[in-house]
Protein backbone atom coordinates (compact mmCIF):
# COMPACT_ATOMS: atom_id res chain seq x y z
CA UNK A 1 0.00 0.00 0.00
CA UNK A 2 1.29 3.35 -1.02
CA UNK A 3 1.65 5.89 1.74
CA UNK A 4 0.30 9.42 1.07
CA UNK A 5 2.63 12.24 1.90
CA UNK A 6 1.00 15.66 2.31
CA UNK A 7 3.61 18.23 1.54
CA UNK A 8 2.97 21.46 3.44
CA UNK A 9 4.56 24.91 3.11
CA UNK A 10 7.74 25.77 4.81
CA UNK A 11 7.75 28.60 7.29
CA UNK A 12 9.88 30.67 4.87
CA UNK A 13 7.29 30.30 2.10
CA UNK A 14 4.48 31.30 4.43
CA UNK A 15 6.39 34.31 5.72
CA UNK A 16 7.28 35.46 2.20
CA UNK A 17 3.68 35.13 1.05
CA UNK A 18 2.46 37.07 4.06
CA UNK A 19 5.06 39.79 3.46
CA UNK A 20 4.02 40.10 -0.16
CA UNK A 21 0.38 40.30 0.88
CA UNK A 22 1.16 43.01 3.43
CA UNK A 23 3.07 45.02 0.80
CA UNK A 24 0.25 44.50 -1.67
CA UNK A 25 -2.47 45.65 0.73
CA UNK A 26 -0.37 48.58 1.89
CA UNK A 27 0.02 49.70 -1.72
CA UNK A 28 -3.68 49.15 -2.40
CA UNK A 29 -4.59 51.17 0.70
CA UNK A 30 -2.31 53.99 -0.35
CA UNK A 31 -3.73 54.04 -3.88
CA UNK A 32 -7.26 54.00 -2.46
CA UNK A 33 -6.44 56.90 -0.12
CA UNK A 34 -4.89 58.84 -3.01
CA UNK A 35 -7.94 58.19 -5.18
CA UNK A 36 -10.31 59.47 -2.51
CA UNK A 37 -8.14 62.54 -1.80
CA UNK A 38 -7.71 63.30 -5.48
CA UNK A 39 -11.44 62.97 -6.07
CA UNK A 40 -12.19 65.36 -3.24
CA UNK A 41 -9.53 67.93 -4.14
CA UNK A 42 -10.54 67.74 -7.81
CA UNK A 43 -14.16 68.43 -6.88
CA UNK A 44 -13.14 71.28 -4.53
CA UNK A 45 -10.92 72.81 -7.20
CA UNK A 46 -13.69 72.58 -9.77
CA UNK A 47 -16.24 74.17 -7.40
CA UNK A 48 -13.91 76.99 -6.36
CA UNK A 49 -12.89 77.72 -9.97
CA UNK A 50 -16.50 77.75 -11.06
CA UNK A 51 -17.49 80.10 -8.21
CA UNK A 52 -14.52 82.40 -8.87
CA UNK A 53 -15.33 82.50 -12.60
CA UNK A 54 -18.93 83.37 -11.80
CA UNK A 55 -17.90 86.22 -9.46
CA UNK A 56 -15.36 87.58 -11.94
CA UNK A 57 -17.91 87.40 -14.78
CA UNK A 58 -20.34 89.49 -12.71
CA UNK A 59 -17.56 91.89 -11.76
CA UNK A 60 -16.64 92.27 -15.44
CA UNK A 61 -20.25 93.04 -16.37
CA UNK A 62 -20.44 95.66 -13.60
CA UNK A 63 -17.08 97.27 -14.37
CA UNK A 64 -17.62 97.29 -18.16
CA UNK A 65 -20.34 99.93 -17.77
CA UNK A 66 -18.60 101.91 -15.01
CA UNK A 67 -18.19 105.65 -15.32
CA UNK A 68 -15.98 105.64 -12.22
CA UNK A 69 -14.15 102.99 -10.23
CA UNK A 70 -12.81 103.73 -6.79
CA UNK A 71 -11.05 101.53 -4.28
CA UNK A 72 -11.38 103.04 -0.80
CA UNK A 73 -9.35 100.14 0.60
CA UNK A 74 -7.94 96.93 -0.86
CA UNK A 75 -10.90 94.93 0.44
CA UNK A 76 -13.62 96.96 -1.26
CA UNK A 77 -14.35 98.56 -4.61
CA UNK A 78 -17.06 100.97 -5.64
CA UNK A 79 -18.31 100.97 -9.22
CA UNK A 80 -20.43 103.96 -10.22
CA UNK A 81 -22.65 104.25 -13.28
CA UNK A 82 -23.85 107.09 -15.47
CA UNK A 83 -27.34 107.04 -13.91
CA UNK A 84 -25.87 107.87 -10.51
CA UNK A 85 -26.23 104.38 -9.03
CA UNK A 86 -23.31 102.36 -7.70
CA UNK A 87 -22.40 98.82 -6.85
CA UNK A 88 -20.01 97.90 -4.06
CA UNK A 89 -17.84 94.82 -4.00
CA UNK A 90 -16.39 93.72 -0.66
CA UNK A 91 -14.04 90.97 0.42
CA UNK A 92 -14.67 89.72 3.94
CA UNK A 93 -12.48 87.88 6.41
CA UNK A 94 -14.19 84.56 5.62
CA UNK A 95 -12.74 84.63 2.07
CA UNK A 96 -16.08 85.60 0.55
CA UNK A 97 -16.71 88.17 -2.17
CA UNK A 98 -19.89 90.17 -1.65
CA UNK A 99 -21.65 92.30 -4.25
CA UNK A 100 -24.09 94.92 -2.96
CA UNK A 101 -26.21 96.55 -5.66
CA UNK A 102 -27.84 99.96 -5.71
CA UNK A 103 -31.01 98.62 -4.07
CA UNK A 104 -28.98 97.13 -1.21
CA UNK A 105 -29.37 93.52 -2.32
CA UNK A 106 -26.31 91.46 -1.68
CA UNK A 107 -24.93 88.44 -3.45
CA UNK A 108 -22.17 86.35 -1.91
CA UNK A 109 -19.57 83.99 -3.35
CA UNK A 110 -18.16 81.84 -0.56
CA UNK A 111 -14.55 80.72 -0.17
CA UNK A 112 -13.19 82.19 -3.37
CA UNK A 113 -11.44 85.33 -2.25
CA UNK A 114 -8.51 84.04 -0.19
CA UNK A 115 -5.78 86.66 -0.52
CA UNK A 116 -7.77 88.78 -2.98
CA UNK A 117 -7.28 92.53 -3.04
CA UNK A 118 -8.49 95.38 -5.23
CA UNK A 119 -6.57 98.21 -6.81
CA UNK A 120 -7.69 100.61 -9.52
CA UNK A 121 -6.02 102.53 -12.30
CA UNK A 122 -7.32 105.01 -14.86
CA UNK A 123 -9.73 102.70 -16.66
CA UNK A 124 -9.81 99.40 -14.80
CA UNK A 125 -10.18 97.53 -11.56
CA UNK A 126 -7.39 95.10 -10.81
CA UNK A 127 -8.07 91.98 -8.78
CA UNK A 128 -5.04 90.27 -7.37
CA UNK A 129 -4.82 87.08 -5.33
CA UNK A 130 -1.14 87.50 -4.56
CA UNK A 131 -0.21 84.30 -6.41
CA UNK A 132 -1.30 84.36 -10.05
CA UNK A 133 -1.32 87.12 -12.64
CA UNK A 134 -3.68 89.92 -11.52
CA UNK A 135 -7.00 90.15 -13.37
CA UNK A 136 -7.57 93.49 -15.06
CA UNK A 137 -11.28 94.26 -15.19
CA UNK A 138 -11.76 96.97 -17.77
CA UNK A 139 -14.39 99.68 -18.03
CA UNK A 140 -15.32 100.14 -21.67
CA UNK A 141 -16.60 103.64 -20.96
CA UNK A 142 -13.43 104.82 -19.22
CA UNK A 143 -11.25 103.11 -21.81
CA UNK A 144 -12.85 104.95 -24.70
CA UNK A 145 -12.44 108.31 -23.07
CA UNK A 146 -15.77 108.52 -21.33
CA UNK A 147 -16.40 110.23 -18.02
CA UNK A 148 -13.54 110.13 -15.55
CA UNK A 149 -13.97 110.08 -11.78
Amino acid at each position, binding site marked *: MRAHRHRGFTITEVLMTLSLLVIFFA*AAGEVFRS*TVLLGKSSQDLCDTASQADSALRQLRIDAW*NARAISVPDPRSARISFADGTAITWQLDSQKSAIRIDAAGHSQRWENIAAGWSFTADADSLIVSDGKSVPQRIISQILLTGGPKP
Partner: protein
Amino acid sequence: MIAAIALMSLSAMTLTLLGSTIFNQSRRTQILGEDAQLRQFLIAGAAFAQSHIQQNSTGEFSMPKISLPAAQLTVSFDSISSSRVTAHIEASFPHHRLSQQLIFILENGQWRITQARLGL
Protein backbone atom coordinates in the same frame (compact mmCIF):
# COMPACT_ATOMS: atom_id res chain seq x y z
CA MET B 1 -5.37 37.70 -8.13
CA ILE B 2 -8.31 39.58 -6.64
CA ALA B 3 -5.96 41.97 -4.87
CA ALA B 4 -4.14 42.63 -8.15
CA ILE B 5 -7.40 43.36 -9.95
CA ALA B 6 -8.49 45.69 -7.12
CA LEU B 7 -5.17 47.51 -7.25
CA MET B 8 -5.38 47.92 -11.01
CA SER B 9 -8.97 49.19 -10.75
CA LEU B 10 -7.96 51.75 -8.16
CA SER B 11 -5.04 52.89 -10.30
CA ALA B 12 -7.36 53.20 -13.30
CA MET B 13 -9.80 55.29 -11.22
CA THR B 14 -6.98 57.56 -10.05
CA LEU B 15 -5.72 58.05 -13.59
CA THR B 16 -9.25 58.74 -14.85
CA LEU B 17 -9.80 61.35 -12.14
CA LEU B 18 -6.44 62.93 -12.87
CA GLY B 19 -7.17 63.00 -16.60
CA SER B 20 -10.59 64.49 -16.02
CA THR B 21 -9.17 67.22 -13.76
CA ILE B 22 -6.45 68.09 -16.26
CA PHE B 23 -8.97 68.15 -19.11
CA ASN B 24 -11.38 70.40 -17.17
CA GLN B 25 -8.62 72.81 -16.22
CA SER B 26 -7.24 72.99 -19.75
CA ARG B 27 -10.75 73.56 -21.13
CA ARG B 28 -11.30 76.32 -18.57
CA THR B 29 -7.97 77.91 -19.49
CA GLN B 30 -8.91 77.76 -23.17
CA ILE B 31 -12.33 79.35 -22.53
CA LEU B 32 -10.80 82.11 -20.38
CA GLY B 33 -8.22 82.78 -23.10
CA GLU B 34 -10.92 82.99 -25.76
CA ASP B 35 -12.96 85.26 -23.50
CA ALA B 36 -10.00 87.61 -23.12
CA GLN B 37 -9.46 87.57 -26.88
CA LEU B 38 -13.14 88.30 -27.56
CA ARG B 39 -13.11 91.18 -25.07
CA GLN B 40 -10.15 92.63 -26.97
CA PHE B 41 -12.22 92.38 -30.15
CA LEU B 42 -15.12 94.14 -28.44
CA ILE B 43 -12.81 96.96 -27.39
CA ALA B 44 -11.53 97.21 -30.97
CA GLY B 45 -15.16 97.17 -32.14
CA ALA B 46 -16.01 100.02 -29.78
CA ALA B 47 -13.10 102.08 -31.15
CA PHE B 48 -14.30 101.29 -34.68
CA ALA B 49 -17.88 102.26 -33.75
CA GLN B 50 -16.71 105.50 -32.19
CA SER B 51 -14.73 106.49 -35.26
CA HIS B 52 -17.60 105.61 -37.61
CA ILE B 53 -20.26 107.36 -35.57
CA GLN B 54 -18.25 110.58 -35.79
CA GLN B 55 -18.68 110.26 -39.57
CA ASN B 56 -22.45 109.69 -39.13
CA SER B 57 -22.24 106.19 -40.57
CA THR B 58 -25.17 103.86 -40.04
CA GLY B 59 -25.88 100.24 -40.89
CA GLU B 60 -23.94 97.07 -40.29
CA PHE B 61 -20.20 96.70 -40.69
CA SER B 62 -17.96 93.68 -40.73
CA MET B 63 -14.56 94.46 -39.36
CA PRO B 64 -11.90 93.50 -41.88
CA LYS B 65 -8.68 91.60 -41.34
CA ILE B 66 -8.90 89.81 -38.04
CA SER B 67 -5.73 87.80 -37.98
CA LEU B 68 -7.23 84.83 -36.15
CA PRO B 69 -8.93 82.32 -38.42
CA ALA B 70 -12.69 81.86 -37.91
CA ALA B 71 -12.92 84.94 -35.69
CA GLN B 72 -15.61 87.45 -36.59
CA LEU B 73 -16.43 90.93 -35.43
CA THR B 74 -19.52 92.81 -36.51
CA VAL B 75 -20.68 96.29 -35.61
CA SER B 76 -24.17 97.58 -36.29
CA PHE B 77 -25.89 100.86 -35.43
CA ASP B 78 -29.51 101.60 -34.54
CA SER B 79 -30.37 105.25 -34.60
CA ILE B 80 -32.85 106.06 -31.85
CA SER B 81 -32.77 109.81 -32.33
CA SER B 82 -30.50 112.41 -33.87
CA SER B 83 -28.53 112.65 -30.65
CA ARG B 84 -28.67 109.05 -29.45
CA VAL B 85 -27.38 105.97 -31.26
CA THR B 86 -27.09 102.38 -30.10
CA ALA B 87 -24.26 100.24 -31.41
CA HIS B 88 -24.28 96.45 -31.19
CA ILE B 89 -20.90 94.80 -31.33
CA GLU B 90 -20.51 91.07 -31.55
CA ALA B 91 -17.26 89.11 -31.51
CA SER B 92 -17.28 85.40 -32.07
CA PHE B 93 -15.33 82.23 -32.53
CA PRO B 94 -17.12 79.20 -33.97
CA HIS B 95 -18.40 77.99 -30.57
CA HIS B 96 -18.00 81.06 -28.44
CA ARG B 97 -19.32 84.59 -28.68
CA LEU B 98 -19.41 87.83 -26.72
CA SER B 99 -21.35 90.96 -27.44
CA GLN B 100 -21.83 94.41 -26.12
CA GLN B 101 -24.30 97.22 -26.59
CA LEU B 102 -23.06 100.78 -26.56
CA ILE B 103 -25.21 103.87 -26.25
CA PHE B 104 -23.73 106.99 -27.80
CA ILE B 105 -25.00 110.45 -26.91
CA LEU B 106 -24.15 113.57 -28.88
CA GLU B 107 -22.74 116.19 -26.53
CA ASN B 108 -21.21 119.44 -27.73
CA GLY B 109 -20.80 118.04 -31.24
CA GLN B 110 -18.97 114.93 -29.99
CA TRP B 111 -20.39 111.41 -29.69
CA ARG B 112 -19.62 109.93 -26.31
CA ILE B 113 -20.31 106.46 -24.96
CA THR B 114 -22.62 106.74 -21.98
CA GLN B 115 -23.54 103.10 -21.49
CA ALA B 116 -21.73 99.88 -22.29
CA ARG B 117 -23.56 96.65 -21.54
CA LEU B 118 -21.53 93.52 -21.79
CA GLY B 119 -23.51 90.46 -22.83
CA LEU B 120 -21.75 87.29 -21.73
